């Protein structure tokens, strides 16, 4: 699974980082870094939750 961020929509509120810090990191300059290019299976449900709960609908996942 891969994760795609729409940087125009993201407002760096770090909701995703709160749900899955293994994968999401909000940087000092308010940009979002995806730490893992390929997301391991055991994080799948957390990722799905992050995508669902991102307040700005800025995240998408692709298989």
């Amino acid at each position: 699974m891969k994760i795609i961020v729409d940087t125009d929509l993201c407002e760096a509120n770090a909701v995703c980082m709160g749900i899955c810090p293994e994968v999401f990191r909000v940087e000092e300059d308010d940009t979002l870094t995806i730490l893992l290019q390929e997301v391991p299976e055991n994080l799948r449900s957390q990722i799905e939750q992050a995508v669902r709960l991102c307040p700005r609908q800025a995240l998408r996942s692709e298989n």
Partner: protein
Amino acid sequence: MTEIDPLRLIDPQCYAEYGYPHEAWTQLRRETPVRFFEPPGWPSFWAITKHADIVEISKQPDVFLNGPGMTLVRERPDDLDRQAQQQIRTVINMDPPEHRAYRKIASAYFSPRALQSLDSLVSETATKLVDGLGAQGECDFITEIASQHPLKIIARILGVPESDEPFILRLTNELFGSEDAEFQRSEDRMEGMREMFTEFWSYFTRVMQERRSSPQDDLASVFANARVEGEPMGDLETMGFCLIAFTAGHETTRGAIGGGFRALIERPEESKRWAREPDLTPSAADEIIRFVTPVNHMVRTANRDYELRGEKIRQGDRLVLFYASANRDEEVFEAPSELLLDRRPNPHLAFGVGEHFCMGAHLARKTSGAIFRELTSRLESVELAGTPERVASNLVPGFKHLPIRYRFAPSR
């Protein structure tokens, strides 16, 4: 199966007397999570009690609108609350596409990075407040600490000098706790509200003028000099922003701090653990906010028919999103009624979700985290010194008085 009395879910007096209706919500989540009520004297509404349903609704801001009203208010002949809600426009009662342009004005100021510059203000304010209590004694935790800390922070970022804080505290109490007799200034609600708006208006008009002539690096200057589609933001909208920073930011954070401290008084082991492990602060503060859920509900209005869990919601129907119920949803949280300082992940909805996700979420976590770290690290003993009292409100039903007897170590 007992029948649910809808007044238990919405009547401000019930909140004052019994607190949050967790028993009723547990039953609703289990039996009828999407449930229509028509209580006498109140507008009819759908009670939404499941986490998944609140997310589904909140993610469709073009179907479920904030504009027609954000909270459930009693039907009144004078329609006062609705008038008051519509006088000043704020991001919270705007809908897309307009909402986005206004939200953008302030969202950058509230990002984690931007707020770093407030770290020392937030922790120094916390230290000073706890110092002010002295080594031991009795106090009302709400008026001395829970109310003061967020107010001082918000006042400072909005450019209010320390000497004006008591005035601002009175205004915010009257505006938000307006169902509660203790905070009403005149018998005649209408008159009281009008007076309050006038005072607020003239005060912040002056602050805005000052920030236009000499902008500074603060939120007041962001509001004063904001432009929407190239034009300076209108007066009503500018005032709306000033108002929402206080109303949305003060009593809510006070609720988190007051409710959280009460929970820690009842759980001395957790308090000691926090003292031993200060690195818990971010997750612990967030867990306190889930556990307390200071903002009990928000309302959405359907602008078309919609089917949810097989129930037919009609255009124009009101939906009450009970965040405090969603945050105890057994399908999402393990041991939902327990306070687990290291709970992770913690996908709670205390700050809402979607389009209107709380802009002040980081500030609120930071403010409450700092005060709890200060309190727990210095606390030698604490107990209740009287009966805690809640605000009579179905919106932010936090404690208004929490008498405590305490003993603190000196600051490090």
